[in-house]
């Protein structure tokens, strides 16, 4: 518990918390830090700060200080790829990415954690790409002193599935591209898909190891897919032929190549005609033509997740609906915008 003592009795005691001083226009900050032993010289300044009483901490067996609490909470929240230092500032501990990768949040568990009155944790959005050392979350206990049990309960909730917060590395994929469309295949127009997709793939640390061009012919598309798989590609991307035109036969080609699972349509604009399929364990992404015109599309939301090994299925595509509408700003600021959040 906290004991209130008169300022004149405070000499020799240690401060229970930082004491903030505000001199308008000049200074705002900690005039005295927690743990500082009050001496005679401090009394005048403390009085000027309006302090006539101070708190002294008298911890009972079942009580815990905010700094200890923060460490317990940080330890429970930090899953794979998250690091933190036991250096609380004003009771708060920062959680950092321990490596480059995709930040993941178990949002249900985070909400359950935050339902506890005495604790809080705020994070970046789920599925945010982060660099090693970047702050991804912060946690603290709300009161200065509290019972130990609620903190332990919150920690238990945070540990429930192992990884409330995590950073998952992106694998280095060998990507095979299949550029479809008679117009490109016959040289009527120049392919622009290849360079765009390659840039996105390389930006995430993967490489394009094979490129094939196919006309709007399901059989030729099937052959291109099988050939990429035979060459050891572990991620395939197909461009074009995803819409409802009679010439758009890419989906037939994918199915005949042996796709056991196929999800056509994502709740994202741009990118409604996106496709995710799996041939064995190899993901196959069908990128609709919007990828040519919009800098950022559904592909930018899905690709990092695919590269962490996450299985993207019908539900994952459906849940992208909330926040899945691009505002199509004149100057694109993605990822610092609501798209995909």
């Amino acid at each position, binding site marked *: 518990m906290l004991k209130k003592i008169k300022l004149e009795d405070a000499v020799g005691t240690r401060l229970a918390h930082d004491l903030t001083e505000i001199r308008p226009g000049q200074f705002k900050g900690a005039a005295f830090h927690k743990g500082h032993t009050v001496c005679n010289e401090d009394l005048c300044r403390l009085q000027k700060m309006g302090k006539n009483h101070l708190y002294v901490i008298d911890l009972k067996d079942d009580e815990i200080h905010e700094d200890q609490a923060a460490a317990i909470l940080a330890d429970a929240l930090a899953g794979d790829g998250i690091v933190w230092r036991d250096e609380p500032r004003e009771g708060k501990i920062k959680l950092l990415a321990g490596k480059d990768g995709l930040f993941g949040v178990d949002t*249900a568990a985070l*909400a*359950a954690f935050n*339902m506890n009155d005495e604790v809080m944790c705020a994070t970046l959005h789920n599925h945010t790409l982060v660099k090693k050392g970047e702050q991804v979350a912060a946690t603290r206990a709300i009161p200065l002193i509290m019972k130990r049990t609620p903190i332990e*309960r919150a920690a*238990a*909730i945070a540990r*429930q599935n192992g990884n409330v917060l995590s950073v998952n590395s992106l694998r280095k994929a060998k990507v095979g591209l299949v550029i479809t469309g008679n117009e490109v295949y016959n040289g009527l127009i120049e392919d622009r898909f290849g360079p765009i997709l390659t840039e996105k793939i390389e930006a995430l640390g993967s490489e394009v190891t094979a490129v094939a061009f196919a006309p709007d012919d399901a059989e030729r598309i099937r052959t291109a897919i099988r050939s990429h798989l035979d060459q050891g590609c572990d991620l395939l991307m197909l461009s074009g032929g995803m819409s409802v035109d009679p010439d758009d036969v890419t989906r037939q080609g994918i199915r005949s190549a042996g796709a056991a699972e196929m999800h056509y349509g994502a709740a994202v604009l741009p990118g409604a005609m996106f496709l995710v399929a799996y041939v064995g364990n190899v993901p196959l992404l069908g990128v609709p033509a919007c990828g040519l015109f919009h800098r950022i599309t559904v592909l930018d939301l899905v690709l990092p997740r695919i590269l962490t090994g996450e299985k993207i299925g019908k539900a994952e595509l*459906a849940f992208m609906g909330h926040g899945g509408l691009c505002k199509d700003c004149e100057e694109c600021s993605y990822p610092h915008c609501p798209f995909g959040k």
Partner: protein
Amino acid sequence: MDAFEVLLESSADAHGHLCPGQVVGVRMAMLGCRLIGLNEPRRHDQIKKLIVYVEMDRCTADAVAHVTGVKLGRRSLKFMDYGIMAATFVNLESGKAFRVVSTEEARSLAAAYAPAIAEKHPQQLAAYKRMPDSVLFRVQQVKVKIDDCDLPGPTRFKAPCTRCGQVVRDQREVIEKGQVLCRPCTQETYFSDAREVTWPDMNWVPGKNNNQSKSDGNAEKMSGGDKPRPYFCQ
């Protein structure tokens, strides 16, 4: 103890339907029993060590009773009418007791745990299966003093009402001005205007051909073989 899904199915069967309260009740009972160290509460060697206090008469109470095997008539099930989704599990042998309280947060979090389900009850049902115990419940270690007159076993206390002669068991009598009274004689009853009646077929005994009326037992009808008589003895 059986697996959760097995218990849930049999509990829903016994209760009459599967509902979120059944999920909470089955899990509450499993947790409570685990906490007091009685993992096979229905087994003969454990059944007499367990007392459960339920604090609501809702679906959850039935599930708790079903999983633990406690029964009102065995005095192992106690109903405390608090209107709280909670139950306390007492190990009579060790004296350990834990009160397991279903959290209100769990209701608020149902959407987070089962976001793909839109309807309220199916969503709660799925979410309560997925939540860890730490989210679904709060637990208090408590002391429960059980009076001798509340324990299972043969009736140890009997007292006749000094006004009507009714024998009152287990010290449920009321002392008024030094007189032992049964509850009905103190007028502190859930019923009123009591008057004794006779009824058709009142000589019926099980297993004998009593020439019982095939009617639906309506008190307006008289039984076949008996002499006509007034419906009610005044």
